[in-house]
């Protein structure tokens, strides 16, 4: 990479929520803790039937409160947590100040949001559940995941030409 780290961060932040520039460099095995959180998270996904195609269909037909309850209570806990972290200036376990990048509005959130919504209701799955569904033995969902990767790649290819 020839780019300096500021330019690189700017690029990574394009159309992304979850980029954080930690100044710390850690050995690869520090990432095992994210693997552990991922495993717990995946178990919740399966046990609460969030990865169920049927639950997603119910949600979009207003036939069940389940998914609204899950997302609503998750957001409520998230809001309280982020508020507490900001209020008490909490630091990460490595002593870094916690930084959450604000999000700028662009038209992608509308066009992309609608397109993703269409895909969410067909596949019954957003990106996270794709990984969990494969884990539960639905091997054909690997095709859906590869197609999602192809979709992301295609977006990257045409990004400059799309309205933002």
């Amino acid at each position: 990479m020839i780019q300096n780290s500021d330019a690189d961060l700017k690029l990574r932040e394009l159309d992304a929520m979850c980029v954080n520039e930690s100044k710390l460099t850690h050995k690869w095995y520090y990432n095992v803790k994210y693997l552990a959180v991922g495993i717990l998270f995946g178990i919740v996904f399966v046990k609460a039937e969030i990865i169920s195609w049927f639950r997603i269909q119910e949600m979009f037909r207003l036939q069940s409160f389940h998914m609204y309850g899950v997302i609503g209570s998750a957001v409520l806990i998230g809001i309280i947590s982020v508020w507490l972290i900001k209020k008490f200036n909490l630091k990460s376990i490595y002593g870094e100040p916690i930084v959450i990048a604000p999000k700028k509005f662009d038209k992608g959130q509308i066009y992309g949001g609608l397109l993703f919504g269409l895909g969410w209701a067909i596949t019954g799955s957003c990106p996270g559940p794709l990984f969990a569904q494969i884990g539960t033995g639905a091997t054909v969902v690997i095709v859906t995941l590869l197609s999602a990767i192809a979709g992301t790649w295609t977006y990257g290819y045409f990004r400059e030409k799309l309205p933002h």
Partner: protein
Amino acid sequence: MLELIKQPWPWYVAGPLIGLTVPVLLLIGNKSFGISSSLRHICASCFPANIPYFKYEWKKEVWNLFFVLGIFLGGVVAINFLANPNPVDVAPKLVKELSGYGITNYNNPVPTDIINWPTLFTLKGFFILVVGGFLVGFGTRYAGGCTSGHAIMGLSNLQLPSLIATICFMVGGFIMANLILPIILSL
């Protein structure tokens, strides 16, 4: 206890646990919760093809790939050790509608009547698996996040763009589920 865990978890248990992922990731490494970016990192690491959008130091975001690998393993653990022995309990109205499309098996998270390898090679399977997946990957990146990045992380941080994105996810979903999917399922 194990019997209780094997039952489907109610929303008021699962929702708060998912919400807690937000502070946990922030506290253990200053990471904002998000999943769809993993698809971009896979592109950047495997097929960058000299596209500017994929020419970044993906290794700095490798935590996200560990996280989604964990979600996959979580699926493996849950289905093998904590599986609910009963079929998923679905709204009767939906059962009636889906039976009209030949969907009657409720034993798996995905409807195996339509999501299976042989169906992949039919027009219906092509729409559900290939077109559906493509829309998920293209749409989430264009929107700058998915259900986790926008609907959970973004709303937790009270971001208006994330609220707009979430509303658009729902509008797209309502249109697909009620107006377009019935046509695809009838193919």
